[in-house]
């Protein structure tokens, strides 16, 4: 009984995770190639993919290393780029009341843009548990670590742009966004966030536009909702 429950959780988690893996594998390979070119040892690539597990910040860190940037500035940049996870974990916390701190700490490790969106969508439809969410996170993590190490060993054996792999995550975000458009106010939020993000991304360097635009949009729409209810 217990065993079949675990088995079901694993299968459900895997079926939710495979699109994420499809997106991570080419990007992991590309990261590994780039890191290896910069002079990182495959062990360093593996260590980074295991300990950091955040794609864009890993790309940025490698390019900073190649320009001779200092350790402290790399760490500060990583913090800024990954601060958006603060919002994602806050948003997931709403669904995770009945669970141990140990499991939460394990789950926190795998919160990425993609796993967050997939898990949040399932949690909000009330057919998801932390076990299945953990399977999603760790499957995606394994795909990321293995593909980045393979990239680090093999150099470029997938030529750039093949099979449209550069578009995998963008297509994933399109579908995940549609899952979130559950009503008028969500659509308004998405429009405000998107337009604000475009404008901010043009005028401020770095990736802080993601967090700023999201906070601005959610706050504005919450304000509109409150004002209409009065």
């Amino acid at each position, binding site marked *: 009984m217990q065993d079949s429950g675990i088995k079901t959780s694993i299968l459900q988690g895997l079926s939710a995770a495979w699109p994420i893996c499809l*997106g991570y594998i080419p990007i992991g390979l590309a990261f590994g190639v780039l890191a290896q070119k910069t002079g990182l040892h495959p062990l360093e690539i593996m*260590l980074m993919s295991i300990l*950091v597990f955040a794609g864009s910040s890993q790309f940025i860190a490698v390019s900073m290393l190649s320009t001779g940037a200092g350790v402290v500035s790399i760490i500060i940049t990583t913090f800024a780029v990954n601060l958006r996870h603060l919002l994602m974990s806050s948003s997931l916390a709403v669904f995770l009341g009945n669970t141990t701190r140990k499991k*939460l700490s394990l789950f926190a490790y795998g919160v990425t843009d993609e796993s*967050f969106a997939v898990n949040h969508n399932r949690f909000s439809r009330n057919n998801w548990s932390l076990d299945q969410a953990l399977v999603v996170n760790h499957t995606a993590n394994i795909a990321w670590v293995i593909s980045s190490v393979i990239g680090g060993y093999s150099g470029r054996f997938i030529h750039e742009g093949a099979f449209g792999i550069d578009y995998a995550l963008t297509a994933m975000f399109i579908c995940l966004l549609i899952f979130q458009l559950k009503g008028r106010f969500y659509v308004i939020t998405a429009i405000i966030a998107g337009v604000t993000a475009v404008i901010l991304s043009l005028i401020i360097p770095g990736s802080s536009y993601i967090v700023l635009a999201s906070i601005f949009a959610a706050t504005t729409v919450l304000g509109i909702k409150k004002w209409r209810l009065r």
Partner: protein
Amino acid sequence: MEVTVIHQKVVWAILGMGLVTYVPRWFPLVLLSRRTLPQWLVAWLDLIPAAILSALLLPELVTSGMPRHMSLWQPELWVALPTFIFALKTKSLGGTVVIGMALFWLAQSII
């Protein structure tokens, strides 16, 4: 044979990166999950996924380069339209990823 070494600097950078990435992922989960949140905060957090996904997506579609500039004639944007419609009709994440990749590949080979 190429000689590669493990650099101490890189290891320190990775350890620091790991720490500053993990803490923002972990802190809200343990802080917020065990308490009853005020209604407005729950409503606000409920809007965050739509906001973040849109803020991640839209600049990728309509801007390019470093520093970023507007770029409306790139395949990223035009492939997004049929991909969007496909996702809307099917609600299939895996299918959308495959279709989006195929269309983008096609668009790049035409251009």
